[in-house]
């Protein structure tokens, strides 16, 4: 065989062999494990921005709950009864969920407060007071035409109402006449209809939602103190306007409820952060604020159309800040 032909055949066989080998190997891979050819299962990356705070354990357990006929706009507790306001009605329940009474109301009810069996219902431009049968015993109009009322707190010194439009607090005497306006020394910033107010131990506590802080005033309207900072972690207020709801814990502590990342936290009256009581998971997720009140040793939480009762659980509390807190707290009986 002459050299040229030898080279030609040899060369062809080499090239052909290489091509066939490569093609054959690829075909084999396609038949045996196509997933390795087309996909790469080793890729486990994802972005973990904030590790799920799986470390947080709530010391409160849901012991009981009931459903109300409609979405809950406001809630208040007094003397063993839970007062629930829905868009067109007010329902009064006992602690075991039994309906005690109910009566219709105008539709744009914003907030409720109860004192001595009288139900103070707050509307954007007026206040109506009902008795337990649903009869109007007192009512008055807002003090200014531009008012847009958000929250109400009642004590024997008067009725305090927060105004989201005029960005101030209106104090009314118990007979309904305007006592005064209360301004914040740094100015109230109210980005949305979320301007909480409550009364505890002779003081008025309200939120300054745009500034992420809780401010306290005397019942005469004098600024006393403020606490709170911005942040997403525990002990701070997240988003644009928080806390959405403030309520006393009957031991001198304040409970705050936030929206965006719903959670219920406990602060001392001087502003020291105690603990998160219920986080988003324990509350049931979502991003609207859950209304919360304290009744003796129970937490009453309202969200959507459900009312839940949470009770402190001693065994779960071992690892939590709540359990380590040495304050004499009525919730921790």
């Amino acid at each position: 065989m002459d050299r040229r032909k030898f080279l030609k055949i040899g060369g062809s066989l080499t090239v052909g062999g290489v091509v066939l080998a490569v093609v054959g190997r690829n075909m084999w891979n396609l038949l045996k494990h196509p997933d390795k050819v087309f996909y790469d299962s080793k890729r486990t990356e994802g972005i973990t921005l904030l590790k799920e705070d799986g470390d947080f354990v709530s010391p409160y357990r849901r012991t009981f709950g009931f459903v109300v006929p409609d979405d809950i706009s406001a809630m208040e507790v007094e003397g063993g009864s839970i007062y629930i306001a829905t868009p067109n009605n007010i329902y009064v329940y006992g602690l075991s969920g039994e309906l005690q009474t109910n009566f219709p109301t105008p539709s744009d009810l914003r907030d409720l407060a109860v004192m001595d069996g009288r139900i103070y219902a707050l509307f954007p431009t007026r206040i109506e007071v009902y008795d337990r049968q649903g009869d109007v015993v007192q009512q008055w109009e807002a003090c200014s035409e531009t008012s847009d009322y958000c929250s109400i707190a009642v004590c024997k010194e008067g009725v305090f109402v927060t105004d989201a439009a005029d960005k101030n607090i209106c104090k009314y005497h118990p007979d309904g006449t305007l006592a005064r306006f209360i301004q914040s020394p740094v100015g109230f910033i109210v980005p949305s209809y979320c301007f909480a107010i409550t009364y505890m131990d002779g003081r008025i506590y309200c939120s300054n939602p745009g500034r992420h802080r809780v401010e306290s005033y005397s019942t005469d309207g004098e600024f006393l103190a403020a606490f709170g900072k911005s942040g997403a972690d525990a002990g701070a207020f997240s988003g644009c306007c928080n806390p959405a709801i403030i309520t006393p814990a009957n031991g001198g502590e304040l409970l705050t409820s936030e929206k965006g990342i719903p959670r219920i936290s406990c602060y001392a009256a001087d502003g020291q952060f105690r603990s998160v009581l219920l986080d988003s998971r324990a509350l049931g997720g979502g991003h609207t604020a859950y209304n919360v009140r304290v009744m003796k040793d129970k937490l009453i939480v309202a969200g959507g159309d459900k009312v839940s009762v949470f009770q402190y659980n001693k065994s779960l509390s071992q690892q939590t800040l709540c359990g380590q807190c040495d304050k004499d707290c009525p919730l921790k009986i």
Partner: protein
Amino acid sequence: MNILAEARFPKPDFTSGYEYPDILHGVPNETLWNVLDIVLLVGMMALVVWAAYRKRSRTVIYAMSVVSVLYFGFFRSGCVCSVGSIQNVVTALVNPDYHLPWYVLLLFLLPIVFALLFGRVFCAGVCPLGALQELVNIKNFRLARSVSVTLSVIPWIYLAFTILYAATRSQFLICRLDPFVGIFRLGGDLGMITFGAVLLLMSVFIGRPFCQFLCPYGALLSVFSSLSWKQLEITEKGCINCALCGKSCPVDAIRAPQVSKTKEERRKGVNRIIFFAILLPLLTVAGAMLLGSQSDALSLAHKDVYLYELLLQQERLRVDASAGMVQPEMDVPLEVETFNALGGDMEELKAKVDDVRRDYTFYAYLAGALIGFIIGFKLLKLSLKRSRKTYEVSSARCTMCGKCFNYCPQNLNLKKHEKTIS
């Protein structure tokens, strides 16, 4: 992962007269280029027809290659190409909802129509992949006929798998294995670019390795061009059997004259043909069975099937971990994590996977049958001895590069004659 039906934070009410900015986004300008693509495609193919049949000029065809590499290759990044259009067309045939753009359909059909009329004009200088190989070709070593015929089955296997994956909507295989798009795009997967570089290196010494041994569209065109209305003649003056053209053809597409000195017994010839004719359906069936039996394994190429298998694997690992047999710390693949986080339903997925697997069974049999048929057909064709008096172009293989024109002495004489006249 959150579909916010209602925003967490309320819309601000601006008191300072702030106005929302609009979202600015670039607008694509595709339509014009697509029209130009089709116009150039038709124009260049027509030019090649004229250059090959009338003028017999390689210069024009070579010039087309340069234009093709620059425009279809580097400027349009070699995507969408006619080779890949097979996938779109197959998907559109199988799936009535699939949107097939008109220019992709034309990219698929026009070269076929030209092939049916004039031969593989597209391959000549219009296909950017072929043109790129053409431009780097310096020396021409030809492979032994037996080797090159064996290797010519590969484009059909590629085509069969392409159809399989496209019909089951699993993968665009051609886009995945395209060697030259990385070079045209000036960037891409390292493996792809290496493959392209190796093929280009081979193209320096061997004529058009991709076109001969790999291109699935070439396989399709070869069917149409073998039946073409006009068959290319190297010279109009008549062949003098000098054998120069045969030696010059880079893809070994010119068949030498074959006049057998001793006439073969007819009976022997008939027997041989009958043998291969019977072998053909047997091979088809064998191919179908072979590939069809692997259809479940093949189906893993589909995204849903892959996800399903991953989920099952995770289940198994979890069971093993709880039984204490495996380390519990394992990285969960992102697909599984996402599926669970989005609330995926295993039952629904299983139904989808069953559908896909059913498709795979059908198309795997089809693809296997195609491969078997092609092998049988090639064997049959090889067994048919054709007598030929002069050098002829095998239009199935000829990519119309035009190299042979300048080697044929009849053509050179003609040109000299024309020159002396003028």
